[in-house]
Structures are given as C-alpha cells and as structure tokens.
C-alpha cells in the first residue's frame, strides 16, 4: 500500500493529511475531515451529489483520488458563504422551495455556482443543460431551475 502526505485548501483552510493512494477525495472529505455536506450517491460519477469545486471547476469527489487534490483548492457548499450566512444561490433555493429531501442540493448549488460564474445571463434551457449531470430523485427540477434563474437575475440587478 502506498501512503502519501498531501496538503490542500478546503473552503479556504489549509489541510494536511496522510492518505492511502487508493482513497478517493470523497472518502477523505467525509470520513476523515467531517465534510458530510458532500454526499455520496452512486459512487461512480453519475449522480452529482458528491460534486465539489476543484480550483473552481465542478468535479465528482468520488472519481478523484485524494492524492490528486494535493496543492489544489477544494470548495464544498459550506465554503460558498461565511459561517452562519447564506450565499444568494442558497437563499434563492430556500425562497423557491428548491430542496425537497435535500440530498442533491449541495451538488446542485455548486454546479449552479460554477455555471453562473461562466454564464452570468443564462437562458432557462442553458440552466437545464447545466444541471443535467446532477440528479434529483425527488424530481424537483422545476423549482431548482426557478431558483437558479432567480439567482442569476438577482446578480444582474
């Protein structure tokens, strides 16, 4: 077994860890660092519940060996706003009732966050396409799209 020492930034804070080479970032985040806001769904990169931002880009934490996070910046939904506050996207999700069971919500919000960063004025169809890799098994997509649309509109005002 290969063990490695890695250091990366988690929501702005430097973390140093010993990890096994075969551990995924998802395991390290949830089981070792207590970042349970990152959800484990399918474990094979399809459902999007384990989405984190790696240097700002959404990736599946379940498909990233932890070793690959070395030197990178990892952001979970908790890192979008200071503790106790909500990011405008999170506020929009609340205002539009865009969470049902809530399991997909952290991944949805991170995907939407990265998408709005690159496409500040998206159409509804573009939003649908942007979140097509994040599954909501409550099938509450309409309100999720409403919330992302509203958050984009609010940024424009």
């Amino acid at each position, binding site marked *: 077994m*290969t063990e490695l020492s890695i250091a990366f930034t988690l929501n702005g804070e430097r973390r140093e860890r010993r990890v096994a080479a*075969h551990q*995924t970032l998802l395991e390290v985040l949830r089981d070792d660092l207590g970042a349970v806001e990152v959800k484990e769904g399918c474990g094979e990169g399809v459902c999007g519940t384990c989405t984190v931002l790696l240097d700002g880009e*959404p990736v*599946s934490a379940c*498909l990233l060996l932890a070793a690959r996070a070395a030197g990178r910046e990892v952001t979970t939904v908790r890192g979008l706003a200071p503790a106790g506050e909500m990011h405008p996207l999170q506020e929009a999700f609340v205002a539009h009732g865009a969470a049902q069971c809530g399991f997909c919500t952290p991944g949805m919000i991170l*995907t939407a966050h990265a998408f709005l960063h690159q496409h500040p004025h998206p159409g509804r169809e573009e939003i649908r396409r942007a979140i097509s*890799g*994040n599954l909501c098994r409550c099938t509450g997509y309409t309100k999720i799209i409403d919330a992302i649309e509203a958050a984009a509109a609010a940024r424009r005002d």
Partner: protein
Amino acid sequence: MPAVDFDYYAPATLPEALTLLADLGEDVKVLAGGQSLVPMLTMRLARPRAVVDIHGLDELRGVHRRDGGLEIGALVRHRSIERGDGPLAACPLLPEAASLIGNVRVRAMGTIGGSLAHADPAAEWPAVVRALDGVLVVRGRDGERTIPAADFFTGILSTALRPEELLVAVRLSLPAGRAGYAIEEFSRRAGDFAIIAAVAAVELDAAGRVARARVAIAGGGPGPVRLAAAEQALAGAPPSEETFREALARAPLEIEPDGDVHASAEYRRHLTRVLARRALVRAASRAGGAAGTPR
C-alpha cells in the same frame, strides 16, 4: 466501495513515466483523468498491482497545428476541447463531440488520450478519430511509433497499446477546401453513453458533389466502425438528404451490434441509418452543400 490497495506512482516527466512502465511490466494501469479508471477501481472491476498517475506530464497537454492538421496531446481535457480555443477552432467537430461526453464533471477531468486508450465501444473520441483517419502517437522507452486509428482499436476496451507504452498524442489531418463535419448520437438519458453515435465528415468537389464522405459509428460493435460501403456509394453523388438516405438503406452496414437491455440489435441498426443520415446532412450543409433540413 473503496478500491483495493495498489502501488501508486506519479512520475514528473515522460521519460520517467516510460521507464516506470517498462520496469513495472504487466498488471499496471495508467491513470489520466480517472473518469473511467477510478469507478473501475472502486467497483473492483480493475484490481491492478500498480497505478501510474500521469497527471504531472505537462508535455502531454499541448494542442498544435501540424501539417495542416492538428496534434492533440493525450492529457488535453474534454472541457478544453469543448471550449474550442486556439488551434481547435480549425475543427468544429471536436467541440461538438466533446460537449456530448458524460457530464460536466467528467469533461472537467477526463482526457482525450484517456478515452482513446480506454476504448469504450460507445465513446465519442474513438469514433471521431476513426472518422477522421486519425493517427495515434505512442511512446515506449525505446522510442515512438504511430498507429492508424483503423489498427488501434482492437476490441472492447482493447487497443494495440503494449503494456510498456503510453499514448502521447493523436494526430488528425483536416481536409483543405469545402469540408464539413457533424456528430449525432442517441442516449436514453443525458450523460449516458451513446446507444449509437454517428460521426460524419463530408468533402465537396468544385462542382458541389461529394468528393469523399466518411462515417464512423460508435456503439455498433466492439470498436468504432466505418460505414465503408455507404461511403463508397456516396463518392461523386450530390450531397442531398435523399442520396444519403438511399446509400444508407442500400449499402450493407458494417456494424455488428449486440442487443442488450438498452436496445435490440435491430434498433441499433435502425439508429445507425438515421443518425448517420442526419450527421451526413449536417456535415454536407456545413461543407457548403445544400442538403436540406435534417430530420
């Protein structure tokens, strides 16, 4: 499920990686973007003794114009190709194909070389490279060799790569003059592997007739397949939807699809004709021929 332990190597340079591969021998997996290999590890479909992680090999991230074509480094990510920046603008097919791959997270990490070396029969890049008669550039400790796409894909998840070799780049020649490309695919859900994908490249002559048409199919067999008979039937023909429909109806299809839970073999043959026609129509129209509206 956690992956089974393996020895992990992260070489910093290409020569170092090639020495490692030569020394380690069999039962080693090369890790590029990890979007196919990591799930295979965690599902324990792959249990290699060692993993050689090549993400540090920056020399494999370049995209260059070369002899009128393109050379794309093995570690260029789908997402970069989707953006179509710089030299990639020379071939609009590439961004179009990249945008169909998996989901946005797969595209952020996954690489063109990883996809080609993995050789999933339903993947987009093998069909694109096969349609464009691409050449795979492969390096071993003792030197470099080039393998035409026609010889590179040898079966399901199988290629002509030897265990000690690394795919370093793919070369695509781009026809000068009136040429157009398109890809069409059908999958059951967004982000799924294609049940069938069709890639078409059409070149028109001065009179506006088809000088050369190339069509490659993904999902129609153990590897990407060219529809050679239909291609031959189209040479010299007017680039109309009717011509394409007829050629695809009459020519024997070289595909050998299996029926499975996703689609019967017959349905895959049907999809092949429909998607190949649509891809040809769009490719011809982009090449400047009036091919009518795709349906």
